[in-house]
């Protein structure tokens, strides 16, 4: 069953056309990378897919239903979002923060139960923060806070994870580790990932579908063979590229 589908989706920010007539089908266990320049509207598209912003035209469906026909908690069980930034104005521990991912799964009167704690703990374990469960969030480093954000959306356990630059603030090792974890979990559990990424090489290594936003309403999508071509990527970033053969396939270097 298609997890997330767009039909004739047009998204626009004031004068900027993000995409026109986009037809997208996100299937279980697929890992999508959204690529494009700064300000090309990747985040806005992600928010539109999550139902947080109305499109100019077209529909977004979660499973069978249009997303605006679903109740908010139901939608949140289907689609989870990792935002670009985190805000923690009030004190909380890492565990408390991961547990808010369980919110859409609980009834209005329900308290978090053993299963919710178990899922939150597993999520912290997955991102390597198990020893930090009782740590205050404001004592975490930028990268640790980022991994905690990923843990929260893992605890939410939605069918589709929309991740806005999940590798932000992460060191090289943690970037690879996180993408390994996310893609492995998604493929094992039949979830779909849609990630905004800035590193073409990491995207090419971990993702199997690519959506290129050119910043003028044009967009292309498909697998690596279909879209990861030098001319398209050079157009996408407005920069000349060289490709180098590696064990993981071709790598792209800025000229």
């Amino acid at each position, binding site marked *: 069953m298609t997890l997330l589908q767009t039909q004739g989706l047009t998204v626009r920010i004031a004068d900027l056309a993000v995409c026109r007539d986009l037809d997208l089908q996100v299937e279980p266990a697929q890992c999508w990378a959204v690529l494009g320049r700064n300000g090309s509207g990747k985040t806005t598209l992600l*928010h539109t897919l*999550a139902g*947080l912003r109305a499109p100019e035209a077209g529909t977004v469906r979660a499973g069978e239903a249009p997303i605006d026909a679903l*109740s*908010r*908690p*139901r*939608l*949140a*069980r289907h*689609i*989870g*979002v990792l*935002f670009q930034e*985190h*805000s*923690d*104005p*009030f*004190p*909380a*521990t890492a*565990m*408390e*923060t991961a*547990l*808010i*991912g369980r*919110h*859409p799964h*609980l009834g*209005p*009167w329900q*308290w*978090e139960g053993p299963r919710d*704690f178990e899922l*939150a*703990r597993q999520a*912290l374990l997955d991102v390597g923060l*198990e*020893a*930090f*469960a*009782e*740590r*205050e969030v404001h*004592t975490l480093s930028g990268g640790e806070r980022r991994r905690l954000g990923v843990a929260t959306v893992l605890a*939410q356990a939605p069918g589709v994870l929309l991740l806005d630059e999940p590798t932000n603030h992460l060191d090289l090792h943690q970037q690879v580790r996180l993408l390994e974890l996310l893609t492995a979990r998604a493929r094992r559990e039949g979830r779909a990932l849609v990630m905004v990424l800035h590193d073409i090489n990491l995207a090419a290594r971990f993702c199997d579908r690519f959506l290129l936003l050119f910043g003028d309403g044009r967009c292309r999508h498909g697998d690596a063979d279909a879209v990861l071509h030098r001319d398209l990527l050079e157009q996408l970033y407005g920069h000349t590229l060289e490709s180098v053969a590696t064990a993981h396939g071709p790598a792209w270097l800025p000229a």
Partner: protein
Amino acid sequence: MRPASAPVTAGARRLPGRAAPLLLALAVLAAGSFAFALYAGTVPIAWRELLAVLAGHQQGLAREVVFKLRLPRAAAGFATGGLLALAGALMQVLVRNPLADPYVLGVSGGAASGALGAMVLGLAGAWVAGGAFAGALASTFLVFGLAHGRGSWSPTRLLLTGVVVAAGWGALVSFLLAVGPQSGLRGMLFWLMGDLSGAGSPLPGLILLGAGLVLAVMLGRQLNVLAHGDMPAAALGVPVSGLRTAIYLLASLLTSVAVTLAGSVGFVGLVVPHMVRLLGLRDHRLLLPASVLLGGTLLVVADTLARTAFAPRQLPVGVLTAAIGVPMFLYLLARERAAT
């Protein structure tokens, strides 16, 4: 290398069971503050006598003093403190700013203008209370309307609108103080500092406090999520704009009733929620009841001291809330730093 932290205990202290002893201790403290308020005063009543009065065995002066004077006043104090602490905790989530207090959206300025306006006109009693309530509600809707404007209201826009409207009310209050009759100046200043000596029946305040607390605790888990931001909360299934409107109206109503009872008592609404957070309760389903208990207790103790410390002269309660609250808060802050 970061120091290794405590092993994973699953953050189980978030469960209501672990917080129960703390809530119980706060309830005992609240009961203690009532005992102190009923005992202390210019008419000496021994503990034994007080127990007899409470058990209904004793008639006469002591009974009159306890039931007609001290109990209603303690109840009004508790209601005021509880309302302000609850409203403060809600406002802090609404504008997502730990420095917010119940007055941050101009409610106290509106109330003060209404109350002082009534005083300048030579009115007293229920007119002053009515003026305060009307002024508070007027400010609530004014800020709501202005901040709403076209499109959505971000916390920053709401906060800025509130601050600016409050400044406007401040000018009006100064004007009223300047043109008001000399003889009424003391009453006006007492009202501005917060004073329970003119409090009417505590019953409406207590009922609203109870109802508001139940409603707020029902929304508690959504508040936990909303504290992380509007968009993240929406992505987690929270009906953000409806919830924000509900919090706004509830907190404003609670604050309006509190200022109607006791004038603009400062400090409680800002600091009590932080004290509760420093005690380790962050989940709003626990933080809100704990704030009500602690806020109520703080005000009952402060008011009892305000009417006994310099008897027969009475101080406005606002003087004492800060005098007690500041060292308490600083102690908790220092304790937390030592623990981390």
